[in-house]
């Protein structure tokens, strides 16, 4: 910036540029979070509204009831396994795309499902899994009785993996593109076998992308309520379903806010761990 700009003029420019956006984030991101915090400390009125007394009772209820501990554990468990399967499917795919002559087209093939409406992608699996669906059409064609695949945990897993796969492939691809392949040749020259060479020379270079992709899949997979709602048929309650229930038919906004705070706390804890291992810059790269 030119030195001639007076401090007052500089302040005016900053306010003009940053002011509106910052104010928006303050009003619609920070303030709602604070309201949620206060609401989580309140109680449920007779009509479901938020009333005093204030206290930690909602949190106490959440952490002392095995039912809720089970729900949060199940959400983390399903999120974790879905993420593992996403990695297994997506990791080789990113390498294949990066090495292909048609990488732009292949990349577009990953981007299209990424931008396709989330509900449509979940809905598609109902069509595949339902009683008159694609899988049962195959099974019955061989003369076997149709299977009850919906609602089921299997369907929830498949749809979760399917939904978040592109979220993993895209950041990982960005890392794979930047790989220094000379290190692989060096490993070969030093007599390493292919698998060992890959593990020692290539895999470590993909760790940042692996981490970023992991978080981009794990966090939304733990928080989702739509997939379990539509494919789990109310049989599988995840933490997202619990929150939705409190703000829907259960009409307990105070408890719902407390569960949301717990979920948010888990996410922030995960990001804090990530920032510690990847350094401050890591967060920037992530998003």
């Amino acid at each position, binding site marked *: 910036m030119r030195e001639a700009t007076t401090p007052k003029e500089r302040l005016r420019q900053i306010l003009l540029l940053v002011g509106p956006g910052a104010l928006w984030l303050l009003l619609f991101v920070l303030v709602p979070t604070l*309201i949620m915090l206060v609401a989580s400390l309140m109680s449920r009125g007779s009509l479901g509204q938020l009333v005093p007394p204030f206290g930690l009772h909602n949190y106490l209820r959440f952490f002392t009831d095995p039912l809720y501990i089970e729900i949060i554990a199940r959400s983390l468990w399903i999120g974790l396994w879905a993420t593992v399967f996403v990695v297994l499917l997506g990791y*080789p795919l990113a390498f294949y795309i990066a090495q292909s002559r048609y990488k732009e087209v292949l990349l577009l093939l990953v981007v299209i499902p990424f931008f396709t409406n989330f509900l449509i992608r979940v809905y598609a699996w109902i069509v595949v899994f339902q009683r008159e669906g694609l899988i049962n059409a195959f099974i019955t064609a061989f003369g076997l009785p149709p299977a009850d695949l919906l609602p089921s945990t299997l369907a929830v897993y498949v749809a979760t993996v399917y939904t978040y796969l592109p979220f993993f492939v895209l950041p990982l691809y960005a890392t794979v593109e930047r790989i220094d392949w000379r290190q692989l040749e060096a490993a070969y020259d030093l007599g390493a076998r292919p698998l060992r060479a890959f593990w020692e020379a290539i895999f470590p270079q993909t760790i940042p992308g692996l981490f970023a992709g992991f978080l981009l899949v794990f966090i939304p997979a733990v928080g989702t309520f739509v997939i379990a709602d539509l494919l789990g048929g109310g049989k599988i309650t995840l933490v997202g379903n619990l929150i939705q229930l409190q703000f829907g038919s259960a009409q307990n906004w105070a408890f719902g806010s407390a569960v949301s705070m717990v979920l948010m706390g888990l996410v922030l804890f995960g990001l804090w761990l990530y920032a510690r291992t990847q350094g401050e810059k890591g967060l920037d790269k992530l998003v």
Partner: protein
Amino acid sequence: MKRLLSLYAWLVFAFLYLPILVIVALSFNQSRFGVRFTGFTFDWYIRLFNNERILEYLTNTLIVAVVSTVVSTILGTLLAVGLVRFQFRWQEALRYLLYVPVVVPDVVMGISLLLLFDVVRDAIGWPQLSLFTIILAHISFQIAYVTLVVRARLMLLDPALEEAAKDLGATPWQTFREVTLPLIMPGVMAGALLAFSLSLDDFVVTFFTAGPGSTTLPLYIYSSVKLGVSPEIHALSSLMVGLTILILLLGTLFWRKRV
């Protein structure tokens, strides 16, 4: 080894596209139930276009997407320029605040905004849950994405270009309009495109901030899916997938021309 990788990759692509292709195929199927193809028809599309409610939901969806994209693109672009070009107090805090809508699960974002609208309505009797509140909610997560995309573009720019404009006597406004803005335009367009698709795609935040009479297409799909699958929804989904592909192709072409 290479062959194995290629086989694996194409199986994953098949996994990505099989469900979508099934829906598109069934949208042209005469039979209302099941996946057996009994004959080709455009009936479901014709029914869809004759359904006035669907047109209303489509209009709602587009109003929300267009208005929220315009506002968030302007605010996000300004914010990105301010964050990159100036150092000021609270900058660090602002950066962290920017990450919140990106990393927090959407159900948390949705209920926190519902709480906000509820508290404000209790206090001053306004706003009712409507298209207006959906738009406010969408802008709140779009801003973050636009800012991050535009900021990435800005960081690639040579600050000397702006310095040169100033040395030649341009006012800050002229510098911004005639030098900075044209240079970051690809980033701004990419940010706007992302914001637009995020809005079209959003179900969860919309679900919590919508009121009576403000049904959008994703809300409609959700409520019909809860009742069961239908060929009309197949047709609607196929059209939306087609629209997504069209937007992406246009975006790719635009991007290539500018860079």
